[in-house]
């Protein structure tokens, strides 16, 4: 695993990618993407066992990741490209005609690294469970990961899946919740409160791990490593990860405004000025 400072530098680059991608097409979802940058950078650069150079749909012997909240595709694409699934240059095709980088991720255009279409929310947990069951049948002891928005938990299918995973002891699976408290129409608390999320998952029979600083690289790695210690212990695992929507760009934080809007030229420059390091922009 790369050291934390290297991963932090990569996270800065990923954030630059996210902003430049959504700015170029004046659309997309920067807020949640920025908030989940540490998680995806950590996952794909040390936490997960995977093979970017030789992508196969079945991923035999590899850990698998499913992005259920597909709208944060910018961070997913940037992280996939920067660990070698496809050329970084291709990020400039995001949301453009004839691109493999669709607005929401899809297998339809055969982009390496993507194993399911997502965008319509609430479906990824079921898919992840299915993949975990297939691994078990194949005697493949790899881990399945998934990421979900907190607003996404308002979808009923999530709770169908949560009941199933606990009842059937799907214990090779770590779901992470991007617990940023915001959704398109405002604060989750006001739109449709989730109540006590930790207690809910515990009541559903899940092992809960909390990552309280989801935008601190070391804390994210620690949270995932802690979650891994519960693999094979008879319960599905959920990592409730507190993040800040828009993290890394001061004027994008503390609001839901940047959930689904792109920065203009001035705003992009202001944002990029805050994200400096060893830039290698595409």
């Amino acid at each position, binding site marked *: 695993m790369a050291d934390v400072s290297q991963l932090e530098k990569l996270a800065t680059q990923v954030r630059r990618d996210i902003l430049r991608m959504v700015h170029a097409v004046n659309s997309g979802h920067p807020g949640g993407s920025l908030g989940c940058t540490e998680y995806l950078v950590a996952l794909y650069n040390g936490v997960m066992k995977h093979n970017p150079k030789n992508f196969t749909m079945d991923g035999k012997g590899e850990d698998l990741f499913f992005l259920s909240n597909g709208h944060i595709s910018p961070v997913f694409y940037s992280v996939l490209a920067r660990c070698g699934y496809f050329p970084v240059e291709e990020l400039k095709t995001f949301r453009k005609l004839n691109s493999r980088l669709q607005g929401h991720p899809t297998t339809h255009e055969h982009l390496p690294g993507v194993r399911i279409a997502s965008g*319509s929310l609430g479906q990824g947990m079921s898919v992840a469970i299915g993949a975990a069951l297939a691994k078990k049948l194949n005697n493949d002891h790899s881990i399945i990961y998934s990421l979900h928005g907190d607003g996404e938990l308002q979808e009923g299918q999530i709770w169908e899946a949560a009941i199933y995973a606990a009842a059937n002891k799907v214990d090779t699976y770590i779901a992470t919740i991007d617990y940023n408290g915001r959704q398109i129409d405002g604060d989750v608390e006001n739109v449709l409160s989730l109540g006590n999320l930790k207690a809910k998952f515990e009541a559903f029979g899940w092992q809960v791990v909390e990552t309280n600083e989801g935008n601190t690289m070391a804390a994210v790695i620690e949270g995932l490593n802690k979650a891994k210690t519960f693999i094979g212990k008879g319960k599905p695992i959920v990592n409730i990860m507190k993040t800040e929507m828009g993290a890394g760009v001061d004027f994008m934080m503390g609001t839901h405004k940047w959930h689904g809007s792109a920065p203009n030229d001035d705003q992009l420059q202001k944002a990029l000025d805050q994200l400096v390091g060893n830039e290698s922009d595409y």
Partner: protein
Amino acid sequence: MKKYTYTEKKDTRSGFGAGLSELGNSNPNVVALCADLTGSLKMDAFQKEQPDRFFQVGIAEANMIGIAAGLTIGGKIPFTGTFANFSTGRVYDQIRQSIAYSGKNVKICASHAGLTLGEDGATHQILEDIGLMKMLPHMCVINPCDYNQTKAATIAIADYKGPVYLRFGRPTVPNFTPADQKFEIGKAVMLNEGTDVTIIATGHMVWKAIEAGEKLAEQGISAEIINIHTIKPLDDAAILKSLAKTKCVVTAEEHQMNGGLGDSVAQLLSRNTPAPQEFVAVNDSFGESGTPDELMTKYGLDTINIIEAVNKVIKRK
């Protein structure tokens, strides 16, 4: 008119159960999922024989579809089972995104389709499922006519790579297709060659089309009867060839007129050789409680309705 006989009436769902059980023994990648209707779907044999490859998901169809999509990642061939209503309308977005758009090799197997579900009434009698499924890009839609054909179709779709919707039902119907008849996806089955009219039927309506053909022969009308078990991809060549000869067609299906087999045939003909067509189908209506036979009569899906449609369409030539 070629003579068709049968020794017994059997339900198509039992053909599915028998086919699935056979697949369980012959194909180790086949897995099955059911949403609390194992007995109704006749999946008990597979469940008993392959306990590690059977997944009871409870009354949670959306989750079942997602899990099935996930199981394909790792090479499994999932067969999901529940009523047609809960296999399609209830989970349309899950099928659309996680299976069809994602190109997953899932077989959506749906029993109790149409009016012949009977007494449970309209909440369960889906008559829109063929339309819903055939609209999805690259979804294969199959509606076999009897026990033997349903069993053969179940076995055949395991070897087909891609999503399939397999529709069957609850009532017992004459089991007349040969047990050893090979099931070819997308290939129409010619049941009777005729010259005056083409009757294209699917599912439970196929036997009624044969009955109609016999009565029409007594009236001196020569009906060509085609069993379309695969609604998508449709056997365009077989239909166009028949219409070149008969110049008119009656379609018969246990489904809404909108969106069903008849629509697909009309679209094919209008693009090639337009011809008079009559539709034996449910006309923009929900069903209701009743016995299967009573319902088929009330909603115009009987042998007599096919005969009337034939007489009408021939006059329009």
